[in-house]
């Protein structure tokens, strides 16, 4: 009889647990990280009465989590990738908007600027057109500065994002380590049964962590979870946390890098390639800084070409034109880890060869090495780094103040600051050099029929440019310049001296002379304005093949292309992530209909067991009444 009660009681107990588990499932159906639980029912150890083995009821041998480590790992990895792309996407789209709108503005202001030169050429003596040119130039400067400052602002928000991510990562890591301790203790206390709810919480924390930074994990035999980030850098080991820290960049203190509390100045940013943190770092190195560099490259090209042309002309006061635009020189920063005070100075030697790259100049083994800062690829250079023999590479000229120590590094940023420092350098309309620097004249007494071109400046720095000269024909086929050596006359050939160049065509007679002189009083001349307006179609960049306008179009396409590529990668990764989430959910999620059916099943079984007990009770009562009635 007692075994009948025992069986029923065991069933009622087990079913009560089952109903609790189901209720718990229903209660936690919407709890993030909750894995559906089920009771593991087994038969109790049977009793043998010598004849047969009679079952002793049911028992709960454990509560199981519906869980797949593989599916969860896959989801975490996918979340890390998605986190990286989503973090990056925010910035590529913002850059797209900045360049697409304000560089659309840049494009318009550049066009206004070149058109303003053409208008100066149409009315060279008009102060109004010259003032309009200065305003248009100011418009270009404002566009560059505004685009640059908006991009710089992005770097500031990236820094805040990095700081916030690192704080969150550290806080999650601490929680995971605390849970680790509780789980180890809990498992021991429950006789090896895992504390499912704590494990759920830990998995959810890990899932949240994987959105911030890519993780790899291993589970110890005691149930503790070890978490590794970057290239196997431990974040959580059992109950210990190695916190991440932010440190100022070695070259630019305003750009935060990631290190760990135990690694000193060793920076691990380079190996953090996934999660939101990876996305922020990528946004800085792959989107914001390259955009600043490219914008700066356009600014350098414009400033250099405009200033060179301006210097080859005369302003209204009869002086060679002062530079129209001012622009910051390339930045050369010594790493904060350098052991001595050697400084590097970089300047642009040839804007046509300038790239949008940054470079790292390092000194190891008594020799300089120059490499691309982004790819690490070696860059060929010439020179010794002294003032007499500067290091020359990619249009740059680098001079070091002394001999650096082994291990010293310098970051060379040729164009990073160019757009932000782009400004108009002249203020007065009369300083606009619209006139050509020299003029030519045919002597009135010439009897031949030769004519002379207006003359062009090929070297504005020649001190004798404005000194004047006479080209005297000693015979119809020979001439001298300022009475110098005799030259053979080629019709239409270049005659160059003192930094200018002219062409004489036709048939001169002996004794004919032509003069080249400073274009004094030539305020109505527009040749230099015409040449300045024509610069818009002239190749400046990439060895003189890409014009300033062309570079802006390429910048817009490049930035838009990057945003588009990140957007589609993000969309694709979202699908992958949804799939991974679906897999995890289909394993661990709570299905209400399933729980309702289980509930019914447990309820019916509970009722049946109760009935069995009631029958047992009745049998016992019957037996007792038979006894008392003396039947037995």
């Amino acid at each position, binding site marked *: 009889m007692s075994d009948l009660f025992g069986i029923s009681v065991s069933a009622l107990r087990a079913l009560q647990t089952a109903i609790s588990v189901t209720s718990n499932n229903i209660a936690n159906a919407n709890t993030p990280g909750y894995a559906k639980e089920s009771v593991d029912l087994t038969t109790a150890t049977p009793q043998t009465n010598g004849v047969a083995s009679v079952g002793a009821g049911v028992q709960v041998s454990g509560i199981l989590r519906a869980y797949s480590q593989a599916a969860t790992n896959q989801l975490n990895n996918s979340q890390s990738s998605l986190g990286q792309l989503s973090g990056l996407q925010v910035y590529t789209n913002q850059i797209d908007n900045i360049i697409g709108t304000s560089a659309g503005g840049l494009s318009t202001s550049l066009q206004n600027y070149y058109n303003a030169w053409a208008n100066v050429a149409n009315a060279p003596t008009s102060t109004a057109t010259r003032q309009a040119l200065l305003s248009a130039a100011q418009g270009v400067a404002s566009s560059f500065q505004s685009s640059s400052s908006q991009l710089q602002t992005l770097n500031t928000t990236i820094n805040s994002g990095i700081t916030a991510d690192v704080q969150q990562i550290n806080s999650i890591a601490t929680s995971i380590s605390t849970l680790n301790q509780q789980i180890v203790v809990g498992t021991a206390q429950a006789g090896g049964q895992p504390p499912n709810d704590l494990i759920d919480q830990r998995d959810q924390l890990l899932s949240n962590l994987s959105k911030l930074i890519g993780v790899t994990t291993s589970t110890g035999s005691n149930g503790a979870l070890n978490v590794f980030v970057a290239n196997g850098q431990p974040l959580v080991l059992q109950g210990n946390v190695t916190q991440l820290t932010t440190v100022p960049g070695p070259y630019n203190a305003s750009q935060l890098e990631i290190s760990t509390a135990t690694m000193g100045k060793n920076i691990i940013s380079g190996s953090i390639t996934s999660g939101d943190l990876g996305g922020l770092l990528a946004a800085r190195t792959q989107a914001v800084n390259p955009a600043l560099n490219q914008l700066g490259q356009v600014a350098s090209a414009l400033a250099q070409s405009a200033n060179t042309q301006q210097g080859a002309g005369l302003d209204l006061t009869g002086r060679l034109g002062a530079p129209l635009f001012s622009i910051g020189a390339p930045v050369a920063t010594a790493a904060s880890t350098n052991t001595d005070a050697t400084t590097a100075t970089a300047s642009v030697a040839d804007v046509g060869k300038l790239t949008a790259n940054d470079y790292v100049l390092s000194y190891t083994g008594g020799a300089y090495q120059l490499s691309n800062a982004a790819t690490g690829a070696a860059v060929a250079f010439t020179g010794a780094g002294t003032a007499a023999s500067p290091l020359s590479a990619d249009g740059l000229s680098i001079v070091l103040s002394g001999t650096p120590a082994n291990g010293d590094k310098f970051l060379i940023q040729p164009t990073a600051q160019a757009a932000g420092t782009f400004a108009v350098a002249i203020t007065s309309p009369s300083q606009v050099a619209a006139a050509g620097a020299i003029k030519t004249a045919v002597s009135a*007494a010439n009897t031949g029929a030769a004519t002379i071109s207006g003359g062009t400046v090929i070297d504005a720095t020649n001190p004798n440019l404005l000194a004047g000269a006479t080209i005297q024909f000693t015979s119809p086929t020979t001439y001298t310049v300022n009475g110098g050596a005799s030259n053979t006359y080629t019709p239409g050939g270049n005659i160059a001296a003192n930094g200018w160049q002219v062409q004489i065509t036709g048939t001169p007679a002996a004794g004919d002379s032509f003069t080249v002189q400073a274009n004094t009083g030539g305020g109505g001349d527009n040749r230099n304005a015409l040449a300045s307006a024509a610069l818009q179609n002239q190749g400046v960049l990439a060895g003189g093949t890409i014009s300033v306008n062309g570079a802006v179009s390429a910048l817009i396409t490049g930035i838009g292309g990057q945003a588009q590529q990140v957007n589609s990668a993000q969309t694709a990764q979202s699908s992958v992530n949804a799939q991974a989430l679906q897999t995890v959910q289909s394993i661990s*999620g709570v*299905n209400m209909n399933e729980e309702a059916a289980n509930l019914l099943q447990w309820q019916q079984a509970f009722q049946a067991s109760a009935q069995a007990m009631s029958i047992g009770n009745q049998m016992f009562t019957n037996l007792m009444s038979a006894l008392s009635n003396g039947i037995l």
Partner: protein
Amino acid sequence: MRITQNLMQTQFLASLGSLESNLAQTQSQISTGLAFTSPAQNPAAAGNVNTYDQLLSQSQQYTTNANSAQTNLNTENNALTQVQSQLQTLRSLALEANSGTMSQQNLAAIATQAAQIQQSLIGAANTQNGNGEYIFAGYASQVQPFSQSASGAAYAGDQGQLQVQIAAGQTVATGDNGNTVFNQIKTGNGTFTVAAAAGNTGSGLIGATTVANPAAYTGGSYAIQFTAANAYQVLDSTSAVVSSGTYASGQAISFAGLQVTLSGQPATGDSFAVAPSTNQSLFTTVQNLVNSLTTAAAGPLNSTALSNAIGGTLNNLDQALSNVSTVQASVGGRLNAITSALSIGTTQQTQLQQSISNLQSLDYPAAITSLTNDQTALSASMQAYTLTQGLTLFKYL
């Protein structure tokens, strides 16, 4: 596949989000009329639109340049027409004065009239454009280029010529400097001049002068001297006799590839100087005419000397007229080039606008279809969700 309510909701929300974002984008396209609102939506097209925008703006600037050049060239054309007409008047006056029937009083009147024409010619040469720039001053267009002097007019300008760009790779000169138009004019017949010596006593008149054999003329100076009333000899600059002959009125004297026709009766000892042409300012030519007429009017009248002087002036005036006509023809050519560049520019601008529109204008039917599709999908998705959400076993417990 096991489906959970949570998953269903997540998926529903995800598809809701994507449909709503599609709707928002289509709506923004329809309200702006643009096929893409940021370069990321179509990077290649965005870059091309930027390039086309630049080309369009450039082309519009070329039109502005061409219009400005047109204005300047029209101003120049008017000034040149005025110069031509003044020169024609002067030519008629010179012919009138040379008719041989003029009294000294009349000659004085003609001299006064010629002096006035001189002033008005200088006025035309000092023409300014709308910006106050002197159009015949070369680069020195802020300074008045011509000012009257004893020998005609002094030139303060230079030999510069302004250009503007009217199309890609095409520039056009917007003017001509005063040196080219008024100063660099060959005297005589363009190759050589013949002048009667001041002391001539005969009535020898200089007639037609031609270069019979350009190859034989080396640019030297000669003197035709009459050794007798009917005999002449031609001396070169070293006084060597290069030719001699018997003079007959109206018969050409040939030497060194040149032909000079003299008429009338020169006296013994009269001489005529033959010299290569030099450049002479138009204003000097006019001043010479005024001076000759004034001298003649003041008397005593030497009709042969006056006639020879006027004859020389007429030659020079013809050279000036021819030079001004050549410049004016070139101005006309430039105006034609501008007209054609303007017309090409207009076509090009239309094409560029078309290209820009093709790239960035919204295909409305497609956009509206897409909007309707997204709308249908969104409402269907909402309905499906509410339907399936109602299906739960708990309803029946």
